[in-house]
């Protein structure tokens, strides 16, 4: 096993686990006013779409790949082995997924290069954006964007479609109240991303956006402070990552951010083979590994309702992420990816046992 809890937890006894009551308190902290401001943004968002001749609840951006190539299944042997077979929300035998896998395989010299190509595709070709994804990985491919779990689903599907075993990992973080200073800045990278978006929202001239931003920021800060005060083990069930097996080494991977978004939010550029940001940044550990995605159902319904009822807020979120990618691209053009990586060189920790692959693996990435 590649990642051991001992490698990632610095010592001391782990704090108690988050209880159901804690989870209920977190949900309760979402104030009705915030929901109201979100709902108020929906009619204008729908009206703008209607005037533009679009469906009132259409996604923020049109599909980036409206037509996808499909691989022929004739004569192809499809694996039914664990970690190689299709699972919930991970249809690795879909012709569209196999077509992408075939293309990436044809450009890769071996398994390690293929795993890297899959990571680059899931992280870079599918951008970070919020929409419901009832159509699974094929819809994510067609749309060209998705949230963390959509990108992880696609990463796992492409790895499996190309013959590499892949699985899902749930993450647990330890929040030590003596050490934590500000979970917004030092906590899960998603906190930082959303905190920046809420700050931007708060600075908008539209009063509704300002109020929503203020409330959202307040909720996020209160949530972080509560986590900090209580000093608990928190399950990041909403943010699974993946592991892909190359040469008997399981390599953890979080394809949520592309380079541009990482640069925009002051995060290290994600590279396969180095500990993912969410594991490295916190005293985080992989708490559970599974063949199927660790959560669905309720979360999918929640996302669907959020995108339906809070259409204007979702548009704002997606547009903010798009703007951030533009800023990040400018940062990387100005500084250069290699220099940007070098700035964070101490952050990068090669995955244990990666040397077993026998590939040239520097202490930190060079590009």
């Amino acid at each position: 096993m590649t990642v051991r809890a001992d490698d990632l937890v610095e010592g001391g006894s782990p704090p108690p686990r988050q209880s159901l009551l804690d989870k209920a308190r977190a949900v309760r902290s979402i104030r009705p006013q915030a929901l109201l401001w979100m709902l108020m943004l929906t009619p204008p968002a729908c009206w703008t779409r209607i005037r533009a001749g679009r469906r009132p609840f259409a996604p923020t951006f049109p599909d980036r790949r409206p037509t996808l190539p499909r691989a022929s299944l004739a004569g192809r042997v499809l694996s039914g082995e664990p970690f190689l077979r299709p699972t919930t929300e991970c249809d690795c035998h879909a012709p569209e997924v196999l077509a992408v896998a075939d293309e990436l395989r044809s450009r890769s010299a071996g398994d390690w290069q293929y795993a890297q190509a899959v990571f680059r595709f899931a992280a870079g070709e599918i951008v970070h954006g919020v929409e419901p994804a009832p159509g699974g990985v094929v819809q994510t491919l067609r749309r060209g964007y998705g949230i963390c779990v959509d990108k992880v689903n696609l990463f796992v599907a492409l790895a499996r479609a190309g013959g590499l075993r892949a699985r899902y990992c749930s993450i647990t973080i330890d929040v030590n109240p003596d050490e934590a200073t500000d979970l917004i800045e030092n906590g899960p990278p998603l906190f930082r991303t959303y905190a920046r978006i809420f700050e931007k929202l708060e600075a908008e001239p539209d009063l509704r956006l300002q109020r929503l931003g203020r409330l959202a920021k307040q909720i996020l800060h209160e949530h972080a402070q509560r986590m900090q005060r209580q000093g608990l083990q928190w399950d990041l069930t909403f943010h699974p990552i993946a592991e892909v097996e190359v040469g008997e080494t399981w390599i953890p991977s979080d394809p949520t951010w592309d380079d541009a978004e990482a640069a925009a939010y002051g995060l290290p550029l994600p590279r396969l083979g180095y500990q993912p940001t969410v594991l490295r940044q916190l005293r985080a550990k992989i708490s559970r590994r599974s063949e199927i995605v660790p959560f669905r159902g309720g979360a999918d319904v929640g996302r669907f309702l959020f995108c339906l009822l809070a259409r204007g807020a979702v548009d704002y979120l997606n547009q903010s992420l798009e703007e951030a990618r533009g800023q990040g691209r400018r940062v990387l053009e100005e500084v250069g990816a290699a220099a940007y990586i070098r700035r964070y060189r101490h952050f990068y920790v090669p995955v244990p046992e990666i040397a077993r692959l026998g590939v040239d693996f520097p202490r930190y990435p060079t590009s």
Partner: protein
Amino acid sequence: MTKVLDGVREYIQGKSAARPGGQPVADEQSLFRLGIIDSMGVFEIVTFLEDRFGVEIHDEEILRKNFDSIQRIAQFVSAKMTA
């Protein structure tokens, strides 16, 4: 020590000035509490210190106590330079 302190101060004041409403930072003020350094910023400052002062900083030395204020950073770097 003075040379190191000046170099660290210049770097931190630059970081602070780049923030919205950035204020001058006293040598003893907590950089984490002020939000001038966060968990990612630590890695940036480590690179700066290595490049500027020619010291080598190991992962196990990247602790809050060594980077919490201009003064602590300067003391830490000076100690490494004289070691």
